[in-house]
């Protein structure tokens, strides 16, 4: 890059060694996809558009897991814990303070911060205790399962925070949707076209931001730690700090998913932190190809769409198919189905493979 000022340098990090896709073909395709996504509401009913925001809600959690698991090499199976904590926090704050003066935006920020704080506390014990590999996976999974059981028993009237009742297994409802203060009248983000554009913009920002992050010095160190923690440590990097920061960023993204989901459906239940809920992000990310942001995003969208279709046509078999898909991916294409396809296409376009080996 010839860029002289720091902005150009930062933008140059949008493509680099840690992300698939660079050059004209990729960015033309990217622009096309964004244009199509922007044009979609022009051709569809507002109700359908609002429903389809559902898919975008989960994408943040998938991207965060890709960062933690794919780039950092840390198995976190409890991302749903942060999803749930942020969702419940949003509910409690927004029910108590209402949606005037942009307070829901404050609730959003506070909830994501709550998820990040929990991640920082948990991550401190895990990474500074040098817990690695499978143990990290099962401790994080245990955390989300215990949180689910805790929220499930809050049915009684004594479980309330201010005006917000937690409502046990039935879940918490009735919180206001996200509202953006605007001249004249506030924009309430009901599941409709406005929410669609809001979430889409947020998603594109997160996606591009993460691309810059993983191609920056931080991302390169992170991948070095994934490849060989000992070597990275010998080179003088404090791997615990890098892993902790990654864990916090990824968990904050899971929290963002939680807030958007809660605001979208005005509803959150303990089941969103259960065993099944915790498994689904693993499926999206593993099937897509966890070690790349783009393939993760595509994979998550495809699996979500497939899951949705299956739920409509044969609801009880959807989870069986998801489980089987996970097993098959691990056995046949350990780096992900979309990832394999992506490297193939990139190889054909550029006549040479982008990245080899893991």
């Amino acid at each position, binding site marked *: 890059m010839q860029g002289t000022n720091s902005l150009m340098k930062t933008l140059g990090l949008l493509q680099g060694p840690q992300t698939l896709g660079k050059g004209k073909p990729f960015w033309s395709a990217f622009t096309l996809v964004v244009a199509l996504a922007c044009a979609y509401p022009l051709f569809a009913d507002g109700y359908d558009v609002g429903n389809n925001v559902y898919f975008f809600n989960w994408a943040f959690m998938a991207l965060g897991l890709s960062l933690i698991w794919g780039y950092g090499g840390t198995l976190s199976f409890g991302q749903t814990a942060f999803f749930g904590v942020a969702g419940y926090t949003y509910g409690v704050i927004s029910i108590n303070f209402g949606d005037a003066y942009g307070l829901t935006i404050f609730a959003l920020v506070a909830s994501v911060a709550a998820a990040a704080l929990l991640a920082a506390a948990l991550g401190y014990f895990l990474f500074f205790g040098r817990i690695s590999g499978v143990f990290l996976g099962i401790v994080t999974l245990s955390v989300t399962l215990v949180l689910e059981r805790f929220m499930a028993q809050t049915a009684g009237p004594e479980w309330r925070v201010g005006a917000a009742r937690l409502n046990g297994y039935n879940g918490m409802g009735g919180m206001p949707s996200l509202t953006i203060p605007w001249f004249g009248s506030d924009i309430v983000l009901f599941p409709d076209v406005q929410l669609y554009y809001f979430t889409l913009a947020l998603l594109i920002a997160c996606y591009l931001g993460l691309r810059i992050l993983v191609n920056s010095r931080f991302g390169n160190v992170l991948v070095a730690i994934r490849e060989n923690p000992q070597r990275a440590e010998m080179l003088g990097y404090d791997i615990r700090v890098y892993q902790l920061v990654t864990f916090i960023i990824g968990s904050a993204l899971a929290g963002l998913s939680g807030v958007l989901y809660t605001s979208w459906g005005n509803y959150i239940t303990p089941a969103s932190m259960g065993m099944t809920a915790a498994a689904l992000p693993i*499926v999206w990310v593993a099937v897509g190809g966890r070690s790349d942001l783009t393939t993760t995003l595509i994979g998550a969208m495809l699996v979500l769409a497939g899951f949705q279709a299956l739920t409509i046509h044969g609801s009880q078999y959807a989870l069986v198919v998801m489980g089987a898909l996970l097993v098959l991916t691990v056995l046949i294409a350990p780096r992900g189905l979309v990832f394999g396809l992506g490297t193939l296409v990139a190889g054909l376009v550029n006549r040479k493979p982008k990245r080899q080996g893991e």
Partner: protein
Amino acid sequence: MTVLFSIFSFLYQTGDAFAFLVLSACGLAIIFGMMGVINLAHGEFIMCGAYVCAAAARAGLPLPIAILAGALAAGFAGMVIERIIIRPLYDRPLDTIVATWGVSMVVTQGTLILLGSTMPGTGTPFGSFTVGPYSYSVYRVVLMVAALGTLGLLWVGFTKTRFGVLARATIQVPHIAQALGVNTGLVYSLTFGLGAALAGLAGGLYAPTMTLVPTMGSAFVVEAFVTVVVGGADIFLGTAPAALVLGAVKASLTSWQGQLAGQIGLLVAVIIVIRILPRGISGWILRERT
């Protein structure tokens, strides 16, 4: 006298928690300690054992035979899964945990589809006895004896029998063991089967005390996970003492604040313990010895 009654009550609850932790964790601990594989389908093997046990008991078999049938069925299922799914993944231990999670999803939902949302169980046998003002279930005492018996049998099995020696040799240096003529593939298969059978045994033993639902495994897995995490890789120096310590923690918190506090306390205790002893109790004991 009241003090004595309270002490007995605390010991009984600790023993009960100890038995639950040992029985639900030892299958997981064997598979992890011997093969480095965390089996996330552990809860489903427990469910398998419980379902087979309940079905056999309702078909008229005496309860001990039904429990053994549950253990055998789970062990057989474990060997099949090891052969098909785990074996290609031995050099990728992190992927086994993901693959077994997939298995767990398929089995839980498959059971729900095939057998419905609940299954009729069998009543708890033996009735109860009274010490002072409280009454206690006899079957819980049987479970404590079963936990100790299982640990004893495993110890004998791994130190005194030919299979135990071959298994330990295979775990320590697989290539040398293979060169010396040990069928390491078979040893892995049997070890995984043994771990699954122990999970099935736990399911069978607890089947008379629980509601049988397809997701019942998740009632065991958190406790099993934390016991293995605290214990570390060795079942006798790790799992057993970890179960004792955690059992006492859980029993005191449960009697103080209720069952949920017991579980949360367990998890918090674990997170603090791994900060201090990252390799678990067994890692700590072994380092002290050398």
